[in-house]
């Protein structure tokens, strides 16, 4: 591909601005993974069904395999790498997935986390059925979803507690450790 056909894209991912030169046909998933090295976003089907590549783009979840990199010019993207705190503290969703065995192979997990993150923002007090619907755009082949639903339910509870205690303190309560 000759340089003249390359496009310049300015893209903010997890709060960090990047300027990249990409072919117009390059998928956002490939931009994130290959150009920016953010390999937490996974590609499971490249036809928009499995949801593994889900990221938040300007506040809405998108399949990054169905978006061209050039479409993300000047967009703000959130990927799984941006969920945990700067000190590595797990986001309550991540902690809840750990607690409830919400993952096995972990390949679909980044996409599930991102979908659930957006879902809980829209619906902070969901029923189990609503959670099932909320994550139905993400295929998981290992868990059978039950533990994912458990995890999202627990995260909703923790996030709620966090919101209520926020007036007093800003410390994140991410859940208890299991004693060994």
């Amino acid at each position: 591909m000759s340089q003249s056909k390359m496009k310049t894209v300015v893209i903010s991912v997890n709060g960090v601005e990047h300027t990249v030169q990409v072919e117009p046909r390059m998928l956002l998933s490939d931009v994130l993974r290959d150009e920016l090295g953010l390999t937490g976003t996974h590609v499971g089907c490249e036809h928009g069904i499995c949801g593994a590549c889900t990221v938040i783009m300007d506040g809405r979840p998108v399949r990054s395999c169905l978006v061209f990199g050039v479409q993300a010019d000047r967009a703000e993207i959130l990927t799984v790498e941006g969920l945990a705190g700067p000190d590595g503290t797990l986001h309550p969703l991540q902690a809840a997935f750990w607690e409830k065995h919400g993952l096995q192979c972990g390949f679909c997990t980044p996409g599930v986390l991102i979908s659930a993150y957006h879902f809980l923002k829209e619906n902070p007090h969901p029923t189990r059925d609503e959670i099932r619907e909320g994550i139905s755009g993400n295929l998981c082949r290992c868990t059978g979803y039950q533990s994912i639903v458990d995890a999202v339910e627990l995260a909703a509870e923790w996030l709620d507690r966090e919101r209520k205690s926020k007036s007093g303190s800003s410390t994140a309560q991410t859940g208890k450790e299991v004693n060994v």
Partner: protein
Amino acid sequence: MSIGASVKRIEDPRLLTGKGRYVGDIRLPDQCEAVILRSPHAHAKILGINTEKAKNLPDVLMVLTGRDLPPDLPPIPMRLSPDQSLEKALQFPLANEKVRYVGEPVALVVATTRYTAEDAADLIEVLYEPLPAVTNVYQSVQPDTILLHPDMGSNDLFFIHSQKGSVDEQLKKCPYVLEEELYIQRHSGIPMETRGLLAVVEEDGRLTVYGPTKVVHFNRQILARLLGKQPSDIHFVETDVGGGFGPRGEFYPEDYLIPYAALCLKRPVRWIEDRLEHMKATNHSREQKHRVVVGFDETGRIHAVRNEIFVDTGAYIRTHGITVPALTQGMFPGPYDIAALECKTHVVATNKTPVGTYRGPGRFEGTFVRERIIDMVAKKLNLDPTVVRERNLIRPEQMPYSNGISALGEEIEYDSGDFPLLLDTARRAMDWEGFGERKAKARMEGRLIGLGFAMFVEKSGLGPWEYGEVEILENGEVACKTGLADVGQGVKTMLAQICSHQLGIPYSKVHVIHGDTDKVEKGHGSFATRGTVVGGSAVWLASEALKRKMLKVAAERFRLPADELDLKDQCVIQTSNGRNLCTFEAILAECREGGVSLRESFTFSIDHMSYPSGIHAAEVEVDPETGKVTIEKYFIAYDIGRAINPMLVRGQLVGGMAQGLGGTFFEEFRYDENGQLLTGTFMDYLIPSSMEVPDIEVEILEHSPSPLNPLGVKGAGEGGTVAVAPAVANAIMNALNDLNDASLEITSLPIRAEVIRKAIKQEAVRNREVKA
């Protein structure tokens, strides 16, 4: 006491934060990308391939066809159940004169980027002469059908025959004989991560391959043989793996082609299978036809079963050899004590993707057939199907029990199990006793509900051996090496718990090292639900040996007999009174001072498999208008002897059930008569989503520990999958049974709502006609 605790997994924090390292995540300097050109024809002669245009495209580094590979290159060998007579049906990495299925590799392109490699693949011109395609096993075995492998002399590639007693003699005595043909459709594991490999030639000339899994040591030997190298010239590195389920980790054509390309180019070559490719390139599984003859008496006691099985093995024999067919018939009898059994299995070639193992290979198929038959017998006699089951079960006092059929080189001998207990557990959990009343009430409300059961025996712990090594590091933490592979099942946590239990340290201090042929001396790998049984036992015994060494040092220091000491809570304790004698660190220091090596290894060998057993039960509601089936309640009881981590066992069962449910209702690789795959995307090959899989109740039983290993464990990996289809089918038939409809009998998978709807509607029409 770490064994038996539902602790959180040590695998998870990396995977939750996007720090996992799957093969597609690795970037090496100068890395280039490979793409495979695949056959669009199910059966055709290759008359010529023109690669000129592709080679001339800028940034294309290499284009290979079958003719470019070494002329003495052997085909990909069988790993399991090898049989010499099948060698003429093995697959070469690239097709030479003929292609035999849609998706067969024809050429390899390497370019600096994936995008360019795909452009180049489009420029390759292949001239094919299409041949008639064989897509059905019955058609395939007809004498006038074209042969896929003329050197084999027949498309009926292999025949397995096993029997116990005389079916003909027993049938003569039976007042009832039932004959049925049942069909299990083609589907497969479909892990969320497709396959991928990255091969690189290191400066010292050694070859490193990232991406192999499941059986890395074995596959390294195969690759060495195909490349004409020594296994020590090759370094396999298992990365994180996005799901195994059987198909992933076998040796495929690409497992040769990508390392070969890297050796030719002296550059790192990466290949990531795309999903559309995966659907036709990676092993399919399951497709079988069963013709069953069953003889029984008026009490429901079954005396004779004959099953003639036709396994659609696809276009080539792949690495599993005849494992799936052999297991199908070996495990077909399930939990029942039947006087006369005969299984005749044909392994038949067709112009479809070759098949291999998928979670519960042979058992998903055989359990569907067997457990449907039990309900058909009950229906014929108007008996309670759970009573028919009860009357035929092997009793606990008959253990160990040999079912008279052999598989994987050994006669199937169940080591332990209490099958009546399983049945009672499920009847109670589902309130079978009160179901009649609930059903009648639902019927009054115009609702059709039904309850079905399916029992099964699984197998686990395939030998011959596994390797484990445990070493206490300078910082007091533990390195545990295993020959097992991690395909997402939680093997690291399981082994860490086992080490922790022996050594009295937190499991989080155990670092499990696996899948790296330079770091782990040897191994057999993760397949056939063998990990915890064989690999867990190896680590248990290695840790125990290490503990004994340490306690010997402690015994001398405290002048106490070593067998009165133990390691607990990071201390040496006296077992009689629980007295804390010294810390773990103190005894480590003492060992080091005395020059005692803090490393032990153990190779655990095992001759016989262990057999977990279980039951599934489903309560369903059938919509009389649409035929749609909703699962209202689903229950699994599984006796695995001992659970190392019940939370992980539960995860295996629930996740396994979801895959079984896919095979019951949704998933099917359907082909047209020309051998074209019609369901090659996730838009038509449907994997269950969170909307289809119900919440599942699981009861883990530890009633029948295996006497064959020191932990008493049996494997938990496959029991969630194997009995879903018959449990659900039996529930649907139960829901419809008082419609007196003899025209519907569920004998094939997947179960389609339209078939159920049609049966209900026909019945309604018939009833109206009767009334008129």
